[in-house]
């Protein structure tokens, strides 16, 4: 009994530790004062109105969403192709997979510097194409890990069964392989989007005047001012991300539950 209470307490404390900074930001965003403080002075939506009305923030948001969508689409497609390709390798599959996830272990600053060199070499510095290329490369390992988990679950015999039933390779892929890979592909897209959307350190090297992303704008904003606008934006981004993740969990849970119910019957 005591152990159970202690365990519960530990759990609550852990989550508290993880979530406290976020609560501070969200709390601070409702201040009515003009300085970033906690606890907030009074309560108002002043800073939310401020950011919504500000062209600078909205442009940043548009840039970030575009960037996240396009790079997530690209990296998910590439990761899916890579994971399926690796499955077909006779040997070296594990090594190739490891290689694809290796960028996760490289310091972001080094990646940023390297990508800057690359982007400059192709005269893409400061352009949206350059940023998209960079984000595609950054998000690819995340997408790859997510899709690989799905690919590992695929049953080779189902694809063979499809072939023996008269379906060619394309029909087999569309009707049998892809539907079973859907949750993994969705997860890959979701993670890529989130990673791209909140990426700062690499992006800092690559943005130009017309391509400032939202997080980069936030970063430069707090460098020279202390108003709570950044807190309001952060709060919005955090909430949007959590809603997205929660939706994903609910949907996959429902799929799993449907599967389990079937087996039990």
């Amino acid at each position, binding site marked *: 009994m005591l152990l159970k209470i202690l365990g519960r307490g530990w759990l609550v404390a852990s989550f508290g530790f993880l979530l406290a900074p976020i609560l501070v930001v969200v709390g601070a965003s409702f201040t009515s004062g003009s300085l970033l403080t906690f606890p907030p002075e009074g309560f108002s939506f002043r800073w939310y109105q401020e950011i919504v009305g500000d062209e600078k923030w909205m442009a940043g948001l548009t840039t970030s969403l575009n960037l996240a969508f396009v790079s997530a689409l690209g990296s998910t497609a590439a990761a899916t192709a890579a994971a399926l390709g690796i499955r077909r390798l006779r040997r070296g599959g594990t090594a190739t997979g490891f290689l694809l996830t290796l960028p996760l272990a490289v310091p972001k600053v080094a990646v940023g510097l390297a990508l800057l060199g690359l982007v400059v070499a192709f005269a893409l510095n400061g352009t949206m194409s350059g940023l998209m290329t960079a984000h595609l490369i950054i998000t690819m390992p995340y997408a790859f890990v997510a899709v690989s988990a799905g690919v590992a679950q695929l049953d080779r*015999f189902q694809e063979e*069964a499809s072939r023996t039933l008269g379906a060619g390779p394309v029909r087999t892929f569309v009707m049998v392989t892809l539907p079973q890979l859907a949750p993994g592909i969705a997860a890959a897209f979701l993670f890529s989007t989130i990673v791209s959307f909140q990426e700062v350190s690499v992006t800092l090297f690559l943005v130009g005047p017309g391509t400032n992303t939202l997080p980069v704008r936030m970063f430069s904003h707090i460098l020279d001012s202390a108003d709570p606008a950044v807190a309001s934006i952060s709060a919005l981004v955090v909430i949007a991300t959590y809603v997205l993740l929660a939706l994903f969990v609910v949907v996959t849970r429902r799929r799993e539950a449907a599967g389990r119910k079937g087996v039990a019957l």
Partner: protein
Amino acid sequence: MSSIRISRACRSYGSVQAVNDVTLDIHDGEFFTLLGPSGCGKTTLLRSIAGLERLDSGRIVVGDQDLARVPVHRRPLGMVFQNLALFPHMNVDQNVAYGLRARGVSRAESRARTADALDMVALGGLGRRQVAELSGGQQQRVALARALVTEPRVLLLDEPLSALDLQLRQQMQVELKRLQQRVGTTFVFVTHDQDEAMAMSDRIAVMNGGRVEQVGTPDELYQRPASRFVADFVGDSNLLDGVADAQNGKPTLVGAGLSACLPRSVPPGQQVTLCVRPESISVDAAAPDHDCRVRGLVTASVYRGSSVRLFVASEADFEFLVDVATAHGGVPVGSTVELSWRSRDSWAVTENVPSDDGMALH
């Protein structure tokens, strides 16, 4: 008429000859089984027929079509997989209709044929169910319906019953055999279970180390095994290894610490294995025509319902398996008995030297 003709098929993986110079003729409408221990090449051979594996050399002809350049999805075959490989994201109807739709059959016609196929396997009305909601036996039948609905020339089955428990497996064996007789499709069935093979097959090819050891009806394999391996693998038997000799003008085997009459003449000096089935041996009941006799000590006795299996050690320490009818009465463990049999109830196997009496490999 032959349904499948396999000639000189070879396939190796590295240094392992998985399929080694196999030639087979499978007849139209036949229930044909590839039987052998794991790793004998039976599954590789089956998958080569389906086109899921490539042969290094050799030909496979179905009907009058050489399959060498025909891709998997254009072959006139159906296949049932070991794990069934039903599509979990489709319901029963969609699973069964899959092959029809893939082959361009119209929606209306495929609906009707799907319903017929499900009726055929006694699953009528369950089309809307999810695959996961069905029992193991029902899933088995969905896999059969799915493979048969396209009316393939040949149905390939890769140990589809191995995941079932014994009782259900025996029930499915009978169902499968009945189904095959009703639809008249050629079945090529792969199994390592000799009981299963014997129960269902019209003919069986026994495979070992990538080669076909013998092709024959279950009765031929049991009564007249072509090799020591077949005699050992198909059914229980007492295998006495020795050298042929002639004593008192009669062909005799000398070895295993005894000399026993051979059922046919074998050139003296030749290696020979005498195969005596446990039910051919009498205990302490030698009739005048029992020309083979040996004394032994009963070391164990196992009750098996209609019969009792005795383990009898001869003086040379060869362990005989003997089945006696339960009605015969018990034989106490530790007693000394006389075993006897008619040489014509036994079978002599001379390895690698085909003779004229049923020994020739297919």
